[in-house]
């Protein structure tokens, strides 16, 4: 079976982000990009499923400008087989991504879409569900365990209050949570070899997908910082201030 793994590149979460002066976006010049943390977990899970047998091919897909190639090559170096870059320089949202991913899925005889539960830049947590709905497929979101057994997948999901386990037939869409696995590092020789793996660059037009977005980001701002309080010297002083000053006890 073939697995489609949609990935997004995002600014390194360790960076202190700066806004453009007009608030129209973040300053991206010269910043370090990484593979979205949750998508990296999805790539790792796909590779593990392939290592267990039964998976014939792992195909990556991403939407964005030319330099997304470097992140796709990193995922190829981890162990994915081929990559599709949908070249797009304009704004994109979860809806646009889901329409493009759904079209790629239809062309490829895939048994599974495996992707991160959210991108750590937009934090929307929509794309997996949108793809599943567009393809009218079952979804298993926020996965912390994935077991493929014949024509079905058993997925343990992280839900409010604990864990829920569901069994869904293939094909299906799975979104990965934080504790599904710990992604491997791509070794340097593999990074060189990854450049020789199949890499296709296509356009939204070639997929018949319009570049319209449904969500317009008008302006970004930084939240007002919480001001630091003060140190207390003892437990007794802490109890006193909580009682008499903060009045929360």
């Amino acid at each position, binding site marked *: 079976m073939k697995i489609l793994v949609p990935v997004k590149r995002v600014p390194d979460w360790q960076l202190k*982000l700066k806004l453009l002066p007009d608030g129209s976006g973040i300053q991206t010049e010269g910043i370090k990009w990484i593979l979205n943390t949750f998508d990296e977990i999805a790539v790792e899970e796909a590779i593990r499923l392939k290592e267990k047998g039964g998976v014939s091919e792992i195909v990556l897909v991403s939407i964005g400008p030319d330099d997304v190639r470097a992140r796709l090559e990193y995922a190829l170096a981890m162990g994915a087989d081929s990559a599709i870059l949908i070249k797009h320089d304009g704004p994109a949202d979860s809806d646009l991504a889901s329409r493009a991913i759904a079209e790629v899925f239809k062309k490829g005889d895939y048994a599974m879409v495996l992707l991160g539960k959210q991108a*750590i830049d937009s934090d929307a947590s929509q794309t997996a569900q949108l793809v599943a*709905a567009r393809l009218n497929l079952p979804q*298993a979101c926020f996965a912390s365990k994935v077991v493929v057994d014949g024509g079905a997948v058993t997925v343990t999901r992280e839900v409010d209050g*604990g864990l829920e386990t569901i069994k869904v037939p293939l094909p299906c869409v799975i979104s990965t949570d934080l504790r599904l696995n710990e992604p491997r590092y791509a070794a340097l020789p593999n990074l060189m070899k990854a450049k020789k793996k199949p890499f296709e660059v296509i356009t939204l037009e070639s997929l018949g997908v319009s570049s319209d977005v*449904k969500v317009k980001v008008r302006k*970004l701002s*930084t939240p007002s910082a919480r001001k630091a309080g003060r140190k207390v010297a003892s437990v007794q002083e802490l109890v006193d201030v909580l009682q008499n000053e903060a009045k929360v006890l």
Partner: protein
Amino acid sequence: MGNILLFIQHVDGKVLKGTLSALAAARELKVPWQAEQIVGVALGSGAQVAAKEMLGYGLTSVRYSENGLFEKYRAEPYARAIALAAKELSATSVVALASSSGKDALPRVAVLLEAAQASDVIGVNPDGSLRRPMYAGNIIAEVELLAPTRVVTVRSTAFSPATLEVGGSECSELGLAGDPELHEQPRFGEIVGYEMSKADRPELSDAAVVVSGGRALGSAENFEKVVYPLADSLGAAIGASRAAVDSGYAPNDWQVGQTGKVVAPNLYISVGISGAIQHLAGMKDSKVIVAINKDPDAPIFEVADYGLVADLFTVAPELTEKLRGLRS
């Protein structure tokens, strides 16, 4: 413009407090989005009771279904039923609490209604645009939904629960005939089992007091020995940092932060947590923050109202004793 549909989330008929926060957001949206009414839908066992209760919160018309399709939450049938209710009640917008099921099902609703969606909304602007956090809460985005139909999930900590208000009296069962695919459920799979945390403490997401433990606890035994009694002395819910969960000191669903729960209690006490940015994203809107850490330079002190630089194994039990003394 059409009505706003509230997805009434409940447990066996008991409406979640977060549903009332979602309603508070819906009320704010009513004028800028030129909605005539707020209507609602409840699904699953106890749905009729939950639906009726919401008529006391200003909803003019509610639908419910206790059909076996909805006995356990599943994204596919729930999304289809919410979309059906939206059509039946002339709603062009759907608002829901951003719980795990709200996050799971609402994007599917958005596709069924061809709607634009904003997730985790924390504010409504007078012109109907929305505010939502991005980049682990380090950036707030002002977004505009460009489609005539809209779906919104609401971060409960950002809206005070809606209060009682005179509503309507129309409460009836949701007809399911309008969507034949609803009945094709086997192809969406089945629930195999649950493993839920024991619920002898308040729910983390809406507790008035939260006590969280971090990596400095050093072991699951210490976490239990130090954090549990402190939490219980305050009737608090327990949270944990990512590091503590990664180390196996606390279950996954106790994680507070960007990828875990977002909490904003009246009082948040962090014990042995350094305060990584992803953790701060999940608790920095708490009313009063107390930090106990032996490292005076720990970033948690930058957001704490009261910091105690000390060995947690000494001061946390002492604090527990003093709080117990206050209670008795």
